[in-house]
């Protein structure tokens, strides 16, 4: 050692150093936590701060400045992730805890018609409204979305028009939902007079929000279809349009279904456009083309706006049902995507 052998590596902290520092930080923060009676959240937060100071400091002494900065950033990034996830966890916990007591069979099977004060009300009319409006929106937007994707992938390719449409689809994903609602409102008002409200207006607004999502996901899936399949079909003398409908679309079907379900799950929770154009009503309305129609998100909003304990209770119950719907749709989308995805690459 003394004869001048060069060390080409720095001194490094052992691999378990962060774990040790973390444990020490938890213990250090635990002392005031015990004395002041902090909750677990405050305790962990304090421990994080201690860790973010102690770990870089230790590293600074042993490993040098650059490594210390690296350790600090690593700690900060882990912390940022933890903080970013915490609202989701908190929100889901609150929705389940506050919503669960409101849910019973009556809540799901009766409407708010003639419900006064603290009587048991229900979301049946809102569920029905959400179902009808969303299905109508899907009927409008899915064909347009898929055919546009076919145009982009099979026909337009890199032409000027195709590039413009791709760009516009991207821009369309950013349209605020309230603007979509106002558009549908302006359309209906121009056609049927200023007081006209109907569920179909909600469907038009939602389809405007759905189309870009459907186009994007379908396009992506169709691009994954290998050209060999298309060429094999052409070689057999099959015309282009049959190649598209019989080869390309079936091959990418699973991916397209996933995209559509995700798009539905995105718009099913939309409130603002439906509030503006479909309005709200207490009873069941199954006619999309006439009269106000309540949807689940609008139900939640109007119960919240009533600012009464029972209103809040109903709002939380509705929120739990809505979140469950969205999560189930998400899950279905993932399962469909996963179940059929591996087969299509073959």
């Amino acid at each position: 050692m003394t004869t001048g052998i060069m060390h080409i590596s720095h001194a490094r902290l052992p691999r378990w150093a962060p774990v040790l520092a973390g444990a020490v930080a938890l213990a250090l923060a635990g002392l005031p936590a015990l004395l002041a009676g902090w909750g677990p959240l405050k305790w962990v937060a304090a421990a994080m701060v201690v860790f973010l100071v102690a770990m870089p400091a230790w590293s600074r002494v042993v490993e040098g400045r650059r490594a210390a900065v690296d350790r600090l950033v690593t700690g900060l990034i882990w912390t940022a992730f933890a903080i970013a996830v915490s609202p989701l966890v908190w929100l889901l916990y609150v929705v389940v805890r506050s919503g669960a007591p409101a849910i019973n069979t009556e809540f799901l099977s009766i409407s708010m018609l003639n419900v006064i004060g603290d009587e048991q009300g229900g979301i049946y009319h809102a569920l029905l409204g959400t179902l009808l409006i969303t299905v109508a929106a899907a009927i409008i937007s899915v064909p347009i979305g898929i055919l546009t994707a076919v145009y982009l992938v099979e026909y337009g390719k890199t032409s000027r028009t195709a590039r413009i449409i791709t760009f516009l689809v991207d821009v369309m994903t950013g349209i605020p939902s309230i603007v979509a609602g106002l558009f549908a409102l302006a359309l209906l008002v121009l056609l049927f007079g200023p007081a006209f409200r109907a569920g179909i207006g909600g469907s038009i607004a939602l389809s405007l929000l759905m189309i870009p999502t459907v186009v994007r996901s379908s396009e992506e899936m169709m691009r994954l279809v290998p050209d060999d399949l298309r060429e094999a079909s052409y070689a057999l003398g099959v015309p282009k349009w049959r190649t598209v409908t019989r080869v390309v679309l079936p091959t990418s079907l699973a991916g397209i279904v996933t995209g559509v379900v995700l798009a539905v799950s995105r718009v099913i929770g939309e409130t603002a456009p439906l509030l503006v154009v479909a309005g709200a009503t207490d009873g069941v309305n199954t006619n999309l083309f006439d009269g106000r129609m309540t949807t689940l998100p609008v139900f939640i909003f109007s119960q919240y706006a009533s600012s009464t304990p029972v209103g809040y209770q109903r709002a939380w119950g509705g929120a739990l049902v809505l979140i469950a719907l969205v999560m189930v749709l998400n899950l279905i989308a993932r399962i469909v995507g996963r179940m059929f995805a591996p087969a299509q690459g073959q």
Partner: protein
Amino acid sequence: MTTTASPERTESVTTPRPSRRGDRAFATVVRVAALTILVALVAVFVFLAAEGWKGLTSDSATYAPFTSFAGYIAPLIVSTLLASAIALVVSVPFAIAVALFISHYAPRRLGAALGYVIDLLAAVPSVVFGLWGGRYLAGYLQPAHVWLHDHLGFVPIFGEPSPNGRSLFTAAIVLAIMILPIMTAISREVFLQTPRLHEEAALALGATRWEMIRYAVFPHARSGMVAGTMLGLGRALGETMAVAMVLATTPTTTLDVIGTASPPTIAANIALNYKEATPERQSLLIATGLVLFVVTFLVNVAARWVAGRSARRLAR
């Protein structure tokens, strides 16, 4: 919109021999569908303008408590910009950190799953965010209002703190949470596209992981990060329910974002006032919606332009 029925119709005609007719019909249908997108966007503008122009110049009573369109919309614009700015300031560092966590820090196998968790945040309906923000988050953030007023009270936006926390500031925090997923998704995408050789070269030269990210990943991803931020801005400008439900609003002009009396954002104002709208008021609300549409459209165009200008196409 109903032209989609034609493929089935032509199918039976073409069975005898492969004719060009089916092809031509299908190509037309597909083109029409694609042009519908264009038509829809133009229609949004045209219909909003057709219904909204009356709102720009009605008699002054419509704009109560103000007297002109400019007076009516000015406080709304100020609120919209303030809320969006606060949301971005809070959200951008988190979005970049979370994206880095998923692309470079988390164990490789966990990365995709953690990305999915963040995407779940985007799946939560805005009305639920509003409910949570108004009933829970506002209460928890109230002490923060007091702190901001006590320590940063000399900044005009931190005036008298709200006693229940239902302020523009809380709304902005909810917005920050809501725009996090889209910004994370875009940043994550570009971080993952950093050329592997650049990263490995940096590490081979002895860079620490952070130095590698600073000198190899960030320069490469800059335009993507800018685009993601602008998309987040577009979302924040147009988000309605969270603001409408968190904010206790009054139509005054104030810069104070932590007080009880902030004007709502443009979008929230529409949702809060559509109900008691006379036809004139309705036109006025549609006119404000037109302003919102034009602004968000331009922001989104700019974002996509920045994203597209860089060598990589983001969404491909």
